[in-house]
């Protein structure tokens, strides 16, 4: 099999240019989709029969939670590619995923708490989903902590890559163990998130939001990726040409 496309794709100058050209193609559709999804979710979708209008938090909570997990997975995949093929651009992508993923984890946690307040009467309950989001946040913080603690940038890339891969194997185990723990300790009085009865007028805006958030994430990733590539390639000739121009 011919792998030249792979190395060409991974070559920093190529990726730098490509990321720059692609960014608007992700940014504008995402803005449009998020606006549409928000309108659909907050205005058009009918209220839930159990939770009334309170369920509408789902339109920002669920996509954030989705991104928090997706970012970690992408980070681990990019890290693995960087580790196996010694590809700097892949490490740059992994480094770009971390802060974005951490922020969307914060968003998922906070919106989950705001959603929980009317449901549980308190902001924080050891709900399995909130608990695993919290552990995920710690994983992100550990990853970024390790990265910043190692001075040599290449070693930081490679060491944090190992951590990302270990973490991504661990995430499903954490998730499973927390749900198992919750099923044992569940007090009957605690009301769980009622699964909103899925109807198309409710679901469509949610799906639109999922796509919109994903595109937004890609756009943000591309912008950060360009910066990270520049940081890793400072001494390369092509950087001088790009920056001077």
């Amino acid at each position, binding site marked *: 099999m011919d792998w030249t496309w792979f190395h060409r794709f991974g070559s920093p100058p190529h990726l730098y240019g490509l990321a720059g050209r692609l960014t608007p193609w992700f940014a504008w559709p995402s803005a449009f989709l998020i606006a549409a999804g928000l309108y659909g979710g907050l205005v058009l979708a009918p209220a839930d029969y159990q939770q009334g209008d309170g369920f509408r938090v789902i339109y920002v909570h669920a996509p954030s939670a989705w991104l928090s997990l997706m970012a970690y997975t992408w980070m681990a995949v990019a890290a693995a590619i960087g*580790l196996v093929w010694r590809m700097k651009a892949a490490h740059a992508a992994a480094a770009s995923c971390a802060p974005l993923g951490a922020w969307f984890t914060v968003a998922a946690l906070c919106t989950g708490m705001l959603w929980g307040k009317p449901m549980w009467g308190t902001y924080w309950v050891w709900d399995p989903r909130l608990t695993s989001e919290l*552990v995920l946040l*710690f*994983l992100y*913080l*550990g990853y970024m*902590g*390790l990265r910043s*603690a*190692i001075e040599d940038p*290449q*070693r930081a890339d*490679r*060491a944090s890559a*190992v*951590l990302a*891969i*270990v*973490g991504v*194997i*661990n995430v499903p*185990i*954490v998730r*499973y*163990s*927390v749900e*198992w*723990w919750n099923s*044992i300790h569940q007090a009957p009085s605690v009301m769980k998130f009622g699964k909103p009865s899925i109807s198309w007028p409710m679901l469509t805006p949610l799906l639109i939001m999922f796509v919109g958030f994903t595109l937004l994430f890609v756009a943000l990733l591309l912008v950060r990726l360009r910066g990270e590539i520049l940081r890793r390639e400072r001494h390369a000739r092509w950087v001088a040409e790009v920056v001077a121009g």
Partner: protein
Amino acid sequence: MSSAVSCARLVIGRDLRLAFRNRTQLLHPLLFFAIVTTLFPLALTPEPSQLRDVAPAVLWVGALLASLLAIEFLFREDAQDGTLEQYALSGRSLTWLLFAKTVSHWLLSGLPLALMSPIVAYGLAVSPAAMPGIAASVALGTIALSLLGAISAALTLGIRRGGALLSLLTLPLAVPLLIFGAQATARAIEGASLVAPMYFLAACAVLGLTLAPLAAAAAVRISLE
């Protein structure tokens, strides 16, 4: 292959001999475990029924922190005196050598903690019938914990003041072990069947046995680069 086995025996033999020349260092994590678990009745209540309720949590958080304390030194000396470098250049599988190192680490920290946990549990008003279950669960849980810790210890090699970072990396990953381990202990105290949580702990240990030495070897190589 017999030469691989004799290799592992040498690595373990060296670590055990070194440990017994520095016996007092072996005691530090155990003392820490004893002291932390002593603090709980003092902070909480001497009431036996309440102590029994919190015993699984106290035991497991104590064991977790105590083995974390030991993990910090798993590779530190070997990295400083160049032994890790020699392992990496020995022509033997670094993964295998580090696996052997992790085994000796468990023998020196996890196993003593497991043997000590019944004593600590007795202090928390747990009935003697629960002791075998508790010791077994701590033994099994610390296997997985040593393996997990080997990865974090290797990752934080060469970082100044890496101790706090080591905890930050290890503890979130250890959440499943805490959950299953504490649950196993709770069931042992209730006299219920331990099978389910022990099964999960064993699954974690097996996963760790297969993957952790690989990750640790990769991390050690990176630290030597």
